[in-house]
């Protein structure tokens, strides 16, 4: 405003050459200084306001720049401008076009101009200037153009930066994924963003006629009032809570609300800024997860119950059958001398075995809080190894063992025994028919696991055919008298129970390698 006033007055000065008016816009002390120093008032104003003057005499074709104008252009004070030179400072494009047009119009149509444009100074700096031009008319003809030149670079840059920041802020507000709102001190929604509208189902116009109380779940109003009061009293400057709103369809929506109070420079509360994160979907999926968990727990319980049934009921029936067969043998020996009785006996014995196996598997799977302990792999291996030394000698099996004596794994000793023995006896059992078994044992380490590698050069397994069934219950792949098809199934369960896993590679007639991942003990 001050500048505008100044400039308007200055125009008058040019016309009237009367400096008393200028005095009016300066305060007394400044005037005194001026008087004392006898500085040209005109120069003073030019310097203070960063305003230069210029004049173009159409008849003489001369251009005059005041020293301030030269300063703005960053040219030496003895610089002698011409119209062409003057125009050459303007930045090509908008700035040059604007000034050319305005200047031409001023001469031809006698219209004044006042534009904000950019020049490139003599030292190559881009600078925002305000250029004002006015035509001096004599006998209805333009004889001179006079004007002002003001350096508005800093001001323009600042306001442009501010405008940019404002644009950025309002874009952020508008496009934020979180719902944002400005609420006045009475609780009216003043402004809301798109995300807010999506969450609530109201348009901006609709919500602006409502208060936050209108859309808050009645049970959550009390806490809002308290929080508002605390913020208005200055006890807190923000508050965060998980609360329920009601959308346009009056359905409950769960949100995470963050509100802060905005005060002006003198500390007066102006409004609230709220961020509202829609948690409804999260709540819904949480609910699903907990339902799933409940189902799983329920199924686990049933599984446990099933294991119990197997353990107790099935076994007791088997026990009775077995006992009755014994009694029949003693009481009625004549009824056993036929083809059928041995088959019945066999069937009952298989039933007993099946129940025992089921039991073993169930016991591994339902055992909670399994007590694992550190086990030195090599020591443990040697123990297992010695317990089947007779079998190894008899079968002339050749075993090379390369286990780092420092490896300690986490496990249950009984399980590890069973695991090792099962793989060793399998490797011997399924050797090539005409040659002794050969087994290589190695270990590898990665971060979490010790990988025990047991490689045999035996019959191998067709993994394409049997791969998915390899670790299944009652699956046998070789015609071997001892094949029960339960070993690998139990082994896999045991390995998994102690946090490990098994991988396998195999080729028919070349052999099989099992990779047993065991947890490293830390």
């Amino acid at each position: 405003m001050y500048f505008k006033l100044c400039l308007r007055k200055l125009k008058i000065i040019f016309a009237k050459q009367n400096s008393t008016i200028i005095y009016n816009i300066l305060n007394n002390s400044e005037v005194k200084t001026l008087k004392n120093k006898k500085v040209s008032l005109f120069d003073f104003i030019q310097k203070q306001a960063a305003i230069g003057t210029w004049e173009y005499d159409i008849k003489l074709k001369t251009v005059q720049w005041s020293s301030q104008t030269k300063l703005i252009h960053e040219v030496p004070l003895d610089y002698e401008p011409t119209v062409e030179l003057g125009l050459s400072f303007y930045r090509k494009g908008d700035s040059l076009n604007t000034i050319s047009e305005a200047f031409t119009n001023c001469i031809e149509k006698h219209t004044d101009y006042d534009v904000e444009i950019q020049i490139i100074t003599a030292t190559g700096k881009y600078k925002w200037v305000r250029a004002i031009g006015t035509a001096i008319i004599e006998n209805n003809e333009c004889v001179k153009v006079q004007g002002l030149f003001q350096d508005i670079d800093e001001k323009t840059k600042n306001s442009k930066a501010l405008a940019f920041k404002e644009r950025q802020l309002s874009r952020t507000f508008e496009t934020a994924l979180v719902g944002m709102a400005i609420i006045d001190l009475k609780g009216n929604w003043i402004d809301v963003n798109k995300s807010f509208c999506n969450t609530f189902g109201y348009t901006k116009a609709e919500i602006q006629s409502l208060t936050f109380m209108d859309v808050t779940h009645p049970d959550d109003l009390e806490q809002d009032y308290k929080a508002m009061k605390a913020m208005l009293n200055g006890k807190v400057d923000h508050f965060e809570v998980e609360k329920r709103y009601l959308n346009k369809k009056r359905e409950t929506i769960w949100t995470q609300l963050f509100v802060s109070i905005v005060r002006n420079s003198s500390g007066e509360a102006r409004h609230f800024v709220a961020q509202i994160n829609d948690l409804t979907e999260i709540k819904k999926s949480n609910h699903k997860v907990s339902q799933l968990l409940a189902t799983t727990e329920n199924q686990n319980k049933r599984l446990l119950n099933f294991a119990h049934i197997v353990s107790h009921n099935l076994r007791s029936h088997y026990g009775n059958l077995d006992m009755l067969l014994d009694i029949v043998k003693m009481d009625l020996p004549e009824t056993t001398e036929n083809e059928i009785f041995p088959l019945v006996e066999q069937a009952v014995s298989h039933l007993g075995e099946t129940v025992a196996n089921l039991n073993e598997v169930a016991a591994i799977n339902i055992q909670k809080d399994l007590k694992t302990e550190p086990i030195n792999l090599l020591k443990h291996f040697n123990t297992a190894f010695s317990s089947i030394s007779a079998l190894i000698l008899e079968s002339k099996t050749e075993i090379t063992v390369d286990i780092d004596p420092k490896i300690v794994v986490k496990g249950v000793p009984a399980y590890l025994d069973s695991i090792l023995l099962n793989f060793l006896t399998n490797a011997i059992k399924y050797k090539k028919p005409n040659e002794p078994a050969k087994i290589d044992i190695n270990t590898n380490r990665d971060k979490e696991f010790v990988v025990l590698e047991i490689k045999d050069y035996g019959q191998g397994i067709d993994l394409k055919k049997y791969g998915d069934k390899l670790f299944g219950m009652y699956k046998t792949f070789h015609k071997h008298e001892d094949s029960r098809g339960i070993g690998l199934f139990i082994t896999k369960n045991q390995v998994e129970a102690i946090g490990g896993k098994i991988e396998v590679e195999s080729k028919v007639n070349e052999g099989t390698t099992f990779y047993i991942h065991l947890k490293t003990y830390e």
Partner: protein
Amino acid sequence: MNKIDIACIIDDNPIFIFGAKRMMELSNFCNSFMVFKNGQEAINNLKVLMSSGESIPEIILLDINMPIMDGWQFLDEFTTIESHKLITIYIVSSSIDPVDMNRAKHYENVSNYIIKPISLETLNTLLKEVTQE
């Protein structure tokens, strides 16, 4: 070989009772039987017998899973009854659950845990244990 006078079977399964009795007869295990279908029935009758001091069994074969009063509840009750005669108790169950086996160890008056089915050898071993004591 010595013979047990009275053997008591506490079990709810009629097939087991039939089989156990027959096995005992065949192995010449005892002179007479006493059979109860659950813990409650056993407690009620044994209490009376023990207070009169007559016909007290020397050995009890006790099942765990029974209706009304199970084997554990029976043991808890039974230990509160005073007896002048030593009664050897064996748990005979089809449960191979280690939890059950461990629990049996906590009862002083339980001599052993036998897993069903029982055979003639089992009975012979029991007979030796009881008569030698």
